[in-house]
């Protein structure tokens, strides 16, 4: 397969030279060197990747989710593979705020790329504590607030699925954080636009879409779930169509709200789909496991593809999707909705 010739489709405009493509872009108040970032939980705290890739080629990275106290994570097995995807139930294992700021942050700060610190709590108080401590730490560009964990006890699930609760939680964190807050939403919520709007009104700078989707797999021989906690979070290319749809829904309903899109990006073309759907930047998660240089490769692919399509700046791509022309003879009059 790898040797097959590249036969390109019709270019929209004459191509550009790749080096003339400008990947630097704005995301809300931020200036990113590139719209491609490494996703939370898939890049640890960055160090392990230095042996494999040039971390400065990244637009930024989001850290493993940080909680006030260290967490040890879930029983095993914690991961398994599914068709074009994987399930995980790591259990938000992390070193805790104190060790993170002391041991991990200095390394990240020195990279000169956008540092997003993903965090979560188990209740209002711990969320707020995290936002205060991390949002004030030097070198933190964004606090990415994970309200998606379907596992936390004490009504935690409501953080990610009930708009009013998410609104209150976001407002409380925004008030104490020195850094802008991007809220990471869960696709398990029934009404993703309602959730995005709720956190936007609470002062979130933007939203990250999407976290993993709750899923399950069974080993029929042992008759056990393949993940010890029965359910796990589905990531990878399998979820890309769902992620793209949610990004497009939110971008269409709430124009102007910065969206960081993610879910199954493995190539520059995948990343461009997210930009066109309305994401201002894109995170890459699962792809890093197989290929520690994934973000760098995908960045090169994105640049080449943008050049081929005559897209000089990231802003030329963002939300540039064209609707199907209703006047075309290929269309029946009533379009715009779908059913199977």
């Amino acid at each position, binding site marked *: 397969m790898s040797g097959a010739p590249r036969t390109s489709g019709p270019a929209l405009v004459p191509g550009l030279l790749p080096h003339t493509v400008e990947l630097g872009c704005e995301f809300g108040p931020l200036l990113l060197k590139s719209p491609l970032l490494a996703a939370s939980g898939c890049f*640890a705290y960055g160090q392990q990747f230095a042996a*494999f890739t040039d971390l400065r080629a990244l637009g930024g990275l989001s850290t493993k989710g940080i909680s006030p106290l260290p967490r*040890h994570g879930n029983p095993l097995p914690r991961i398994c593979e599914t068709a074009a995807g994987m399930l995980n139930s790591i259990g938000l294992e992390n070193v805790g705020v104190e060790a993170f700021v002391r041991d991990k942050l200095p390394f990240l700060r020195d990279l000169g790329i956008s540092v997003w610190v993903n965090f979560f709590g188990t209740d209002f108080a711990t969320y707020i504590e995290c936002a205060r401590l991390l949002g004030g730490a030097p070198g933190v560009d964004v606090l990415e607030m994970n309200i998606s964990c379907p596992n936390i006890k004490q009504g935690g699930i409501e953080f990610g699925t009930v708009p009013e609760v998410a609104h209150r939680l976001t407002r409380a964190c925004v008030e104490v954080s020195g850094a802008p807050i991007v809220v990471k939403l869960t696709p398990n919520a029934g009404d993703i636009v309602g959730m995005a709007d709720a956190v936007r009104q609470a002062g979130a700078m933007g939203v990250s879409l999407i976290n993993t989707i709750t899923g399950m797999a069974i080993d029929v021989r042992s008759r056990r779930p393949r993940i010890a906690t029965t359910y796990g979070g589905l990531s990878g290319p399998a979820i890309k169509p769902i992620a793209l749809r949610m990004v497009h829904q939110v971008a269409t309903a709430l124009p102007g709200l910065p969206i960081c899109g993610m879910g199954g990006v493995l190539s520059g073309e995948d990343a461009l789909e997210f930009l066109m759907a309305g994401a201002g930047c894109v995170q890459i998660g699962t792809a890093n496991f197989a290929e520690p240089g994934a973000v760098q490769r995908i960045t090169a692919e994105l640049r080449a593809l943008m050049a081929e399509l005559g897209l000089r700046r990231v802003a030329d791509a963002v939300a540039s999707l064209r609707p199907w022309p209703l006047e075309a003879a290929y269309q029946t009059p009533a379009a715009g909705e779908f059913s199977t």
Partner: protein
Amino acid sequence: MTAAQFEARVAANTRLGGGYFSLELEAEEPTPVAAARPGQFVMLRGAWGRELLNPRAFSVLHAEGKRLTILAKAYGQGTRRMWALRPGEPMTVTGPLGVGFPDPDPEITDLLVAGGVGLPPLHMQARVAAAAGLAGKQELFYGGRDREDLVLLADFERWGVAATLATEDGSVGVRGYVTTALAPRLEQARAAGERVRVLSCGPTPMLVAVRQIGLAHEVQTLLCLEENMACGFGVCLGCAVPVHGVKPYRYCCTDGPVFDARELRWP
């Protein structure tokens, strides 16, 4: 000897019977995997699109210069595809990864307890020892379901490493589990004041038994574990291994895959 990710091509894919195969890969240049110790592993992935996302872990059987060889059994999606690979097909390799077994020691006899695809680390330990003139300090205990489940025996013979074989159907060696032969050997060592340690790799139920026997006889017992892995380099946190101590888990890929039996929070 830091790990790298590089491209390689299948140089040979040899079917050994029973679904086992040894896959030899060749890179463009000498690779860091050539420095791998027994027990270290590589992550392998073929050009198989988006269906199988993550690479699979394989112990290094042998590596030198541009070449590296692994031993596997066609079982799941990945190994079945690998079984069918033909010379020239591409694979992406990451490695060497993990912490391996300790060096052979002239003062200590290594009892190598292997089951199924757990052979490679012990195979390499025996080869390294033989190259250092310590073949006499290596003894293989090798178990499988049947005759086809025991492969690469000729190598051990050539190196002069003694082998005790066991099959569940009794077709080769003693009938039953290989662990049955381990306890008497440890008794004998104790009686003779001989210094021994146990190095083992294989299916988890076997390792559980080896651990209990090793602990009962108070000999150093090192187990090479095979946890599900997504990354192999300490990032996904999927390969947790339950241990005693302040932290309930360590990581198979970076802290292991070789663990001391005492450390494991196992039955």
